[in-house]
């Protein structure tokens, strides 16, 4: 099948109007040795067959049948039903970038509200229309810092930041002679502040809660950075701002992260939605699209894409980034979710996430420190045995850390969200105790 409207009767008329006798004449500028022969058999399928095919393919994924305790940058949360209902509206789903502002006030206002919501959560002054994901957001923040501090060639990054994010950061910085200095973590997984030397760095980039779920002492870390005149970048799960100190409160200049926990299903890795927010004085170096409020010829309030002189379509090679599309529809899903929970709900959601993880941890690996949503669980048995045992019971218990941190080969990274009931958590505890003997 196809979605082409014009059929033979119309095509005939149109070819006559154009002044050619057949379609091939319209492709005459393509050298004949390059042109492919027209397929003779229709190898397309009907909509029904397409749906059957996709259902069968989806059925080859057995993961959805497991209880999911994987986190590590992608979290299973309830997505409010209203999200789908609004995001699937034609006027949002099938619209384009709001370049003609007068016909796109809906989407522009949505982006404005998204920017405002991110500022509400982070406590910072300005945000943008979204970036691709948390990883590229970190990379863009680093490049931003280097533009702000052109004499610096170094950025300090915590090793307890998501390994994939650090790899993407390396990718974005690879073409320039910048140096990434990694700060190790202590036994408890927290940033080793005693080894922090940010002399001459453009920025310090940390993640809190970090990859292990540990809440860092961001305030103390940034205090040291500020004494050296170094920019402070905080990468955070935006849900954590419902409970924990905002980026502004701990002294961040730039906040980044991924909005996935708010309104975006797991979807095998994407589309997610990166965010970036900063203090007012840094706005000219912000990458990506920004929506601003203005007035029309009659003094009525309206919204436009603004400060476009930073962007690729105006500045080309001098742009702050090459980014063109953002994650608009994903940002809308996040905005709706933030508003659905609202001021009170977001706090309660963050708290119950904290508490459920704390409950599981207290029964299996009690200890001090502050964790959000996930924590490390140690086993004396081989990881293969641990995984096998849990999986027999239909549970994917967590992520083996060996692959990312060879020194942590006996640790599992376990994520607990509001989707896990006491009954389910108790079951997990029983199985873990069985394994431990």
């Amino acid at each position: 099948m196809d979605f082409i409207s014009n059929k033979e009767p119309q095509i005939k008329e149109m070819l006559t109007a154009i002044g050619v006798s057949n379609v091939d004449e319209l492709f005459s500028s393509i050298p004949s040795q390059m042109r492919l022969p027209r397929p003779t058999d229709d190898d397309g399928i009907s909509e029904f067959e397409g749906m059957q095919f996709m259902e069968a393919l989806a059925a080859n994924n057995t993961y959805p049948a497991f209880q999911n305790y994987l986190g590590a940058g992608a979290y299973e949360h309830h997505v409010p039903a209203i999200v789908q209902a609004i995001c699937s509206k034609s006027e949002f789903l099938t619209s384009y970038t709001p370049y003609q502002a007068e016909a796109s006030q809906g989407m522009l206002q949505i982006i404005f509200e998204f920017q405002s919501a991110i500022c509400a959560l982070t406590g910072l002054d300005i945000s943008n229309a979204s970036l691709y994901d948390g990883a590229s957001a970190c990379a863009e923040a680093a490049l931003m810092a280097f533009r702000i501090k052109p004499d610096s060639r170094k950025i300090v990054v915590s090793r307890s930041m998501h390994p994939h994010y650090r790899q993407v950061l390396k990718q974005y910085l690879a073409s320039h002679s910048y140096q990434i200095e990694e700060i190790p973590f202590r036994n408890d997984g927290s940033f080793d502040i005693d080894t922090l030397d940010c002399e001459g760095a453009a920025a310090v980039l940390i993640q809190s809660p970090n990859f292990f779920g540990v809440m860092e002492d961001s305030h103390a870390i940034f205090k040291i950075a500020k004494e050296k005149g170094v920019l402070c970048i905080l990468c955070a799960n935006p849900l954590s701002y419902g409970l924990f100190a905002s980026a502004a409160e701990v002294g961040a200049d730039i906040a980044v992260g991924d909005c996935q926990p708010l309104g975006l299903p797991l979807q095998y890795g994407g589309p997610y939605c990166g965010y970036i927010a900063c203090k007012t004085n840094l706005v000219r170096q912000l990458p990506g699209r920004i929506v601003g409020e203005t007035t029309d010829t009659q003094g009525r309030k309206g919204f436009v894409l603004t400060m476009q002189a930073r962007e690729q379509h105006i500045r080309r090679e001098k742009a702050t980034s090459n980014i063109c599309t953002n994650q608009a529809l994903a940002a809308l899903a996040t905005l709706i979710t933030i508003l659905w929970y609202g001021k009170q709900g977001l706090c309660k959601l963050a708290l119950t996430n904290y508490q459920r993880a704390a409950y599981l941890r207290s029964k299996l690996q009690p200890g001090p420190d502050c964790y959000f949503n996930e924590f490390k669980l140690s086993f004396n048995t081989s990881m293969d045995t641990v995984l096998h045992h849990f999986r027999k019971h239909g549970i994917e218990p967590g992520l083996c850390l060996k692959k990312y941190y060879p020194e942590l080969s006996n640790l599992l990274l376990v994520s607990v969200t509001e989707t896990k009931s006491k009954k389910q958590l108790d079951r997990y505890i029983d199985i873990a105790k069985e394994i431990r003997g």
Partner: protein
Amino acid sequence: MTIFQKSQKAQHAYSLPSDTTAFEQFQPPKKYIRQTPIPLPEVSEIDLTRHFSQLAHQNAGIDNMFYPLGSCTMKLNPRVNEWAANLPGFTRCHPLAPEETVQGCLQLIDELIQILCRLCGMTAGTLLPNAGSQGEFVGVRLISAYHQHRGDTNRNQMLIPDSAHGTNPATAAMCGYSIVTIRSNSDGDLDLTDLKAHLSPQVAGLMLTNPNTLGLFSPQILEIARLVHESGGLLYYDGANLNPLLNIARPGDMGFDVMHINLHKTFSTPHGGGGPGSGPVLCNDKLKQFLPTPRVELHEERYRIIHEDPSSIGAIAAFHGNFGIYLRAYLYAKLHGNYGLRKIAETAVVNANYLKSKLERLFTAPFSRHCMHEFILQADRYLDKGIKAMDIAKRLLDYGVYAPTVYFPLIVKEAMLIEPTESESKDTLDRFAAIFEHIVREIETDPEIVKTAPHTKSVSRLDEVQAVKHPILTHTAHTN
């Protein structure tokens, strides 16, 4: 009013599981707790619903109106793709799930790459880049890796046509290259003399789109490829204009070494108001070892993930890219088959040439030969009436159609770049032409109404200068 102005104390929409008793004793240490309340509005579900309904009334998509945006390929976004992308068998898969449990996802990834490679004459690819720009970034990084691998460290220039999309030079700059601009000739094609003058051992490559941003296929492409390769450079294909080439001609056969595809253009994934997109990158054997990780491969009838490869440039995305987006492209390709994809290309070109034939006499058509999927018209003849391309674009909005792309490419004065796509029926194209004729008559009889358009939207022309001079970028900066 923004949603922040619709707050009513204690109202809310959310609900949370009530089994909280066992967990209540766990409270985070005070030193970490947020001190400032979160300034979010308190809104009920019905008010939230209505708020977004009202915003939908102030927006429009392809489902609502004709969107002839040149360079954007605004074709129908099939709802069956939405249905497929929302299957729980896909949405509930965690990106770090064990390979054995996500064989369906891995099969999709592997098969889509193969489909795209066959279509484009390439041998390997990746679906990781999250959008066209990120695809360009990966492609240029592959070129860098190639030269580095050969020990050729002098190639620090990237050649880019003056007609190129802004992302091309922006990407090259992000990858550390200095940009050398190559002129277009009067046919709208790359000026070969200028190209030859700039090719040197310092050039890493040439970034090109073909058909170019003027909607014209370059008959010189084989010569261009030969020249670039002879000088030791590589040829990058910007896939934004792939729609008219599907199963007609392949970038690989034209001599391109690496390319990206915009799935949200050619493969109908929804534009979503500005994203998410997806920008797969394909390449030939010269570059495949450098492709980013993770990669998927079929091994003894099971799919597995290759996480690391010493030759690879490394990661580009947090996980597997925009899986939910390229899933839609996969179904789209399967529904059409090679036969249907060819029909897309043919009809896109017929539609564009038909529309061009109806509009040519109203505007300056800088290139008289047949166009591909899009064409340029210039509105410069109306300048003496005080009317610019922007004014015509705004007046089109009053007639229930979206405006074409204006002022791109930069090298054409008062440019309107029009791309109907294969989706549109002849009637829609006829009505669009009639609207243009009407507006041209208005320019004669009542130019003011065009100059001050639009008149029927919720706002009239917005002051963009004010927006830059006095930025209001969040609701807290309101003066209302």
